[in-house]
C-alpha cells in the first residue's frame, strides 16, 4: 500500500498531466503546475474518489498546494 503522499502525488500528476517528480509538496496547482480552475475542481473530484470521501466546497477551495492536499487527507482520514 502506497503512502498518502505517494497516492496524492500520483493523482496530481495524472490529473494535471505533469511529471511526478515535479509534484513537490510546496507546489501550487495553479501557479507551479499550470492548473486552471476547472483542473482544480477535477483534481478534488479525483482525490474524493481515490480516498472515498467527500470534500466540502469550502474546504476544497483551500486546497491549493500538494502539501495542503496531503494534510487535508491525513487530518480527515488518518
Amino acid at each position, binding site marked *: 500500500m502506497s503512502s498518502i503522499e505517494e497516492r496524492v502525488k500520483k493523482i496530481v500528476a495524472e490529473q494535471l498531466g505533469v511529471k511526478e517528480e515535479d509534484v513537490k509538496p510546496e507546489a501550487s496547482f495553479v501557479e507551479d503546475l499550470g492548473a*486552471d480552475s*476547472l483542473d482544480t475542481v*477535477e483534481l478534488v*473530484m479525483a482525490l474524493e474518489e481515490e480516498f472515498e470521501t467527500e470534500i466540502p466546497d469550502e474546504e476544497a477551495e483551500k486546497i491549493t498546494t500538494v502539501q495542503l492536499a496531503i494534510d487535508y487527507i491525513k487530518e480527515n482520514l488518518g
Partner: protein
Amino acid sequence: MTLNTSLKDRVALVTGASRGIGAAIADMLGEQGATVIGTATSEGGAAKIAQRFAEKGIAGSGLVLDVTSADSVAALLEKVKADFGAPTILVNNAGITKDNLLMRMKDDEWASVLETNLTAVYRVTKACLRDMTKARWGRIINISSVVGSMGNAGQANYAATKAGVAGFGRSLAAEVGSRGITVNTVAPGFIDTDMTKVLPEAQREVLMSKIPLGRLGAPEEIASVVAFLASEAGGYVTGETIHVNGGMYMA
C-alpha cells in the same frame, strides 16, 4: 471522408422522451447506434418508451424521471450508470408551457415553468457533467424554442426559460470546451406535436403565414439536427443556438 453520424457505443439520456420532439430525438439517436435512456414523468410514459425502443430494436430503456427533483435525478443516474454506463450524450428536452398574459400570470405558473424548463436543465446537466469530464468527451444539447429569441405574447415565462437555456449553454460551452464537451441549443419553431395542437385555429393560421416553408416542422426534423450535434460530425459546433423553424425567424 464520409459524414460520421454514428453514435455507436455512446450512451444517451433524453428527458421528456415519451412523445413529440423528445420521442423523435430518442428514436433517432437510437437508430444512429446509441444506447438511449428516454425518460417520462409517469410509469405509463416510461413503459411506452421502452415498448417503442423494443419495436424499433433500439438498445436502452424507458425510465421515470421527475426533472424537478434532485433525488429523482440522482436515482435515475445511479440506475443508468449501473445498467448501461454513464451517459455522455445528454438531451435536455423535457419542458412545459403554462401560458398566460403577464398581468394574469400566477406565481405558480411562472415558478413551475422556470423549475421544469430552466432549473432542471442546470440540475440534470450538473449530474451528468462529472462523467463527461472524466471521459473527455460529451455532448449536451438543450432544446429551446424560437420563442426564446422571438418572444410571444402570453409566454413570458416560457420564453424566459428558453432564452435562459441558450445563455446557460454558451457559458457552459466556455467552461468545459477544454474537456472535449460541446454544449448547444436547438431552437425548434412551429413543430407538429401535442404542444402545438392545442393552439387555437386562428393563431395557427397567423403563425403559418409567417413560415416561408409554408408548413409545420416534423419532430424528426428537429431530431436530425440533434443527432448531428451529438455525433462526431458536429464536433466543432459549440455554444451555438441552431434555429430549426422553416424560416419563421431568421437570426
